[in-house]
């Protein structure tokens, strides 16, 4: 499969009262056509900012992209004019946001919010756009779409709003959808429905997806490949299967061990990662995960490891102690 989106050395900074924060620090990842890629990490690790940087929607003036390239179908999005970029947003790359409660405009009807993209990007007439909007609502499983078009977001439940967001994202048949924690704000039962819907639609329409999440369950089930982020950098990347079976970075290992599993004995203890993510204004020269790491060696404090091959094809991890992590029995728990 050809590469659809390639992010190279992307660096995004925020100016805060505490100093300049490098939320995304020289990150590279890619998404191939039709593929589902996950970006995983704790809150504040830079995963949402990465996606917003691709869309060039990082909130100015505090936030700005200071370096790197975002190649989409061979064009560098960061070099485009604002008008050229506008034509890509919603048409070629669409985004689904985390909070279905606040991400829809409360004073506009569902129909209006669905049709405006169709009218602008596809040049549809209002009746055409309306017909397609009804079709889209039906496609995402909202019953009685024609009537629903005239309603407002507050008349929709959380799950339905997220379905509507998905319909909105898929409206102009983009080739890539960036889904920023699409299910975090939803009930667990609804989460599964939404994810199944997204997976199903992306397969049927051949849309590539980037799923941003902190939920490893989501990753295991829906992603083809996974990027694990920590403190603004990617610390491990590989196929979802391999990452689960043989994590090579202590952080990935820690994430896996901190998730409760139904197939484990009930009394098995959870093993959370101790400590807090680091303050991004105070990063040292070494590995950002070092203070919380059970595998740390002297070298980690002074010398930051780069991504290097860690087993199977395309599996890379940024750790000096790959071998020791690999030999840890916990890493094989599956």
């Amino acid at each position, binding site marked *: 499969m050809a590469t659809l989106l390639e992010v190279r050395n992307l660096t995004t900074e925020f100016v805060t009262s505490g100093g300049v924060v490098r939320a995304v620090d020289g990150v590279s990842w890619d998404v191939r056509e039709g593929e589902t890629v996950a970006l995983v990490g704790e809150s504040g690790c830079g995963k949402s900012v990465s996606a917003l940087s691709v869309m060039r*929607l990082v909130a100015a003036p505090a936030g700005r992209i200071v370096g790197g390239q975002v190649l989409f179908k061979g064009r560098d999005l960061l070099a485009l004019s604002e008008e050229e970029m506008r034509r890509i*947003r919603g048409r070629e790359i669409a985004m689904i*946001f985390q909070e279905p409660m*606040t991400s829809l405009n*409360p*004073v*506009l009807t569902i129909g209006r919010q669905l049709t*405006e993209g169709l009218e602008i990007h596809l040049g549809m007439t209002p009746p055409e756009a309306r017909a397609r909007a009804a079709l889209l609502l039906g496609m995402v499983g909202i019953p009685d779409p024609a009537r629903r078009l005239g309603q*407002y977001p*507050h008349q929709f439940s959380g799950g339905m709003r997220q379905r509507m967001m998905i319909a909105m994202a898929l409206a102009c048949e983009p080739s890539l959808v960036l889904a920023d924690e699409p299910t975090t704000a939803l009930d667990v039962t609804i989460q599964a429905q939404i994810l199944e819907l997204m997976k199903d639609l992306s397969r049927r329409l051949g849309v590539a997806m980037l799923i941003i999440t902190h939920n490893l369950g989501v990753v295991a089930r829906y992603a083809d490949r996974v990027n694990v982020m920590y403190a603004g950098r990617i610390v491990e990347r590989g196929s979802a299967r391999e990452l689960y079976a043989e994590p090579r970075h202590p952080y990935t290992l820690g994430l896996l061990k901190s998730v409760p599993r139904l197939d484990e004995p009930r009394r098995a203890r959870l093993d959370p990662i101790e400590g807090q993510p680091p303050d991004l204004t105070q990063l040292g020269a070494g590995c950002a995960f070092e203070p919380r790491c059970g595998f740390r060696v002297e070298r980690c404090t002074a010398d930051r490891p780069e991504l290097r091959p860690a087993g199977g094809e395309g599996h890379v991890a940024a750790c000096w102690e790959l071998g020791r992590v690999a030999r840890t029995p916990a890493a094989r728990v599956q």
Partner: protein
Amino acid sequence: MTKFIVRRLLLMIPTLLGVAVLIFLLLRIVPGDVVEARYVGGQGQFVSVEQMAMERAKLGLDQPLWKQFVAWMGGLVRLDLGISMWTGAPITEEIKLRFALSLQLAVMATIVATVLAIPLGIVAALKQDTWIDYGVRVFSIAGLAMPSFWLGIVFILGLLIIFEWLPPMVYTPFWVDPWQNMLQLVWPALAVGYRYSAVATRMTRSAMLEVLREDYIRTARAKGLWTKLILARHALKNAILPVLTVIALEFAFLLGGLVVTEQVFNLNGLGLLFVEAIARRDYTLTQALVMLVATVFIVVNFTVDLLYAWLDPRIRFR
């Protein structure tokens, strides 16, 4: 929706009744009445106590308070405002022309304020912390700092000195000669509207800034909409609600509160009438004016609520 309107209309009755009781009692707590004001205030002649009692009886002031109140209420229900205690003329006649003038001035000032405030507020929000924003803020604070009667004087002097022309000083109703009428009223409308726009500009700016940070604006941008469309369709409709409230309440205030500005432009509006009525202890006229202004306030508030419901669908279903 109909239920909402009916309920709000019914709620007006206790509000107006409350205003009526308050103004009725407050006026009578203030020392002196119209008879004293007429005889004592004036030519320094001696008036016998009996004569004053007679005058009071003629005006019904010797009746118990509750009887006076009931009589007044009875008139109000029949939309009969009674006669002025001072002039003896029907109050409707006293108020009619002045109300038309004050209403026209308030409407014109509101138009000036809105036309100034909304674009300026939006521009300031979009260019936050640039010289454009500072410029708008200085302009609007200057408006707040300058009393509109002073600005009015500056206008008049400016017109006189630069153009050697004075706006007409005699009021012509709009329906008699619109041009003359406008020539006179446009200046006070500008002076008052400018000052009045200051609060609305700042409100527009801060409401816009708040709305522009909302998630749904980001969603709209992610959809690839034009910036202008995002502003007009997504942002403004949300930001306009608090601005509407400010503009509407100010409008109601303008009807009775322009005493000095009216003087500067030699306008015989409600403001001056209000001051005179109170000074003369003209109970019936003051009461009628207060009820009129209260009614305008309530009607304006009600209109704003309806506009809210129209602009924000979440309110409709409460």
